[in-house]
């Protein structure tokens, strides 16, 4: 939490060379971000942020489609190999760097496209979605709720969409926020897969640090956190 506050504060400073940022209060950094007039990298922070946001969002959508049913299956049924599914779905073992390389080797043509980033993000962040949704499922009596709906004449898909999913709303929202923020901030995988075009946020920040316009980056990250805060409050 501390670095978040620090970042937010420094985004209004004009200098940060010692221990604390100085030169308050300037909105220049924010202006750079929002209007894309930033110096440093070859693109504006704003477009990089928007790009990452969009990619991460696409990753979350995939996570929702894949992760919610997995979380449901593990919470509800007692099938052979259930523990294995659980371990593989939940332990966030694959470091982004390895996944990135495996990806490049397998589909060298995809490397520059956003699709590679989206698929990578969704694979990397799926565990968080599964975990969050599962905790929602575990707190409700899934079997009795599902069987009640079915005895009332609802088919299984209909039961799933109209009763099960809405009841796990809290977990699904939490999972989406967590996996979205993590995907938007993912560096390793992005670094390996990205080669040209708009850089994802993490790459942009990375490039900016060497170019010493960290305060721009801070503003960008602040925008990012504000976005999360707004989404969290709105839901």
């Amino acid at each position, binding site marked *: 939490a501390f670095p978040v506050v620090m970042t937010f504060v420094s985004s209004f400073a004009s200098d940060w060379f010692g221990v604390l940022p100085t030169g308050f209060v300037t909105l220049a950094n924010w202006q750079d971000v929002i209007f894309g007039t930033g110096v440093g990298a070859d693109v504006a922070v704003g477009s990089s942020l928007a790009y990452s946001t969009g990619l991460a969002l696409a990753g979350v959508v995939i996570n929702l489609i894949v992760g919610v049913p997995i979380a449901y299956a593990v919470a509800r049924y007692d099938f052979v190999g259930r523990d294995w599914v659980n371990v593989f779905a939940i332990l966030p073992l694959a470091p982004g760097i390895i996944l990135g390389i495996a990806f490049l080797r397998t589909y060298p043509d995809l490397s520059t496209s956003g699709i590679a980033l989206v698929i990578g993000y969704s694979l990397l962040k799926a565990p968080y979605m599964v975990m969050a949704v599962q905790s929602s499922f575990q707190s409700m*009596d899934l079997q*009795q*709720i599902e*069987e*009640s*709906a*079915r*005895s*009332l*004449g*609802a*088919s*299984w898909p*209909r039961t799933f969409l109209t*009763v099960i999913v*809405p*009841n796990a*709303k809290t977990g699904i929202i939490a999972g989406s926020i967590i996996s979205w923020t993590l995907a938007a901030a993912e560096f390793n995988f992005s670094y390996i897969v990205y080669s040209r075009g708009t850089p994802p946020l993490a790459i942009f920040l990375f490039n900016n640090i060497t170019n010493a316009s960290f305060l721009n980056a801070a503003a960008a990250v602040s925008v990012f956190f504000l976005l999360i805060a707004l989404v969290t409050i709105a839901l």
Partner: protein
Amino acid sequence: MSEVSLDNVTKRFDSTVAVNDVSIDIDDGEVMGIVGPSGCGKTTALRLVAGFETVSEGTVRYDGEDVTHIPPENRNVGLVFQSYALFNNMTVLQNVTFGPKMHDVGKEERRDRACELLELLDIEELADRNPKTLSGGQQQRVGLARALAIEPHILLLDEPMTGLDAKLKQTLRQELGQLLDDLEVTTLYVTHDQEQAMSMCDRIAVMNDGHLEQIGTPSEIYEQPANEFVAGFIGTANLLEVTIEDEQVSFGFTELDAPGPQRVDGTATVMIRPDDVRVGEGPVSVEITNLFYQGEHIQATGLLPDGQKLTLRLDRSLGDVTTGDSLSIAFDPDDIHVIESTR
């Protein structure tokens, strides 16, 4: 409403037999109870009727029609669980109209039907509330209304009273019993609480270890239990070893004329209910070892002359009896029941 029957139904899970060759016929409008200790197979039996488990052998019939392989959503049964399992993402009214909606009942009609049911159950003012905010008793009614809204072939109640306060349980038992009577809904009521089953059901099936031990009206089961298990599970029973010879029942310490000709000759077990032990006069003397005040009466344990324990009921007017006192008791030949099977 319909007749529902289980014909020689067996359900196996891997190596265990949860329900073993059970046949139960529920008449149209009848309230049938299934009671037994936990793990006896009563819940599995209910799930077989609902279609959530597939039978390993045997047939499930609604109105004579074989529904064994029909999936649960097409069986039209009303389910009320112990947890009520209300849909917290919907209001009470939406919960109740959910079933009719799934059956493509028109919007107007399902609303009317739901309001009617809510009114019948005296919860019409809760229509727009979220189920989460309701008390246990209110949730139970919503669960009932939701199940009844699809006009089910049969209403299945799975331990609907467990988890409620003792006092509330008593009140709801009366109300629910009354309601089921009035609606003439064919009902299967599964519970481990034999007192509830006795007061609410027309007939009771007693299960143990997957088997059906006895099926009959509450008074048949209470007064003429088929075996020691039923005698001990339903109410409190004194089981005494006797010798029957020439229509004389010999307890060792006293003798009785048998109530009519007996099928058993030789050693047998007889059951006497505590409330059938006549206290105050008679040939047998018991020494009181224990007293439990229970309001309406006092439950006492006494030692018979041969050292066996006997549970008896004392009237509140005998409130000054204390441990160590001796009381005279008698058995009435009509009140002793010879148990033929020892299972």
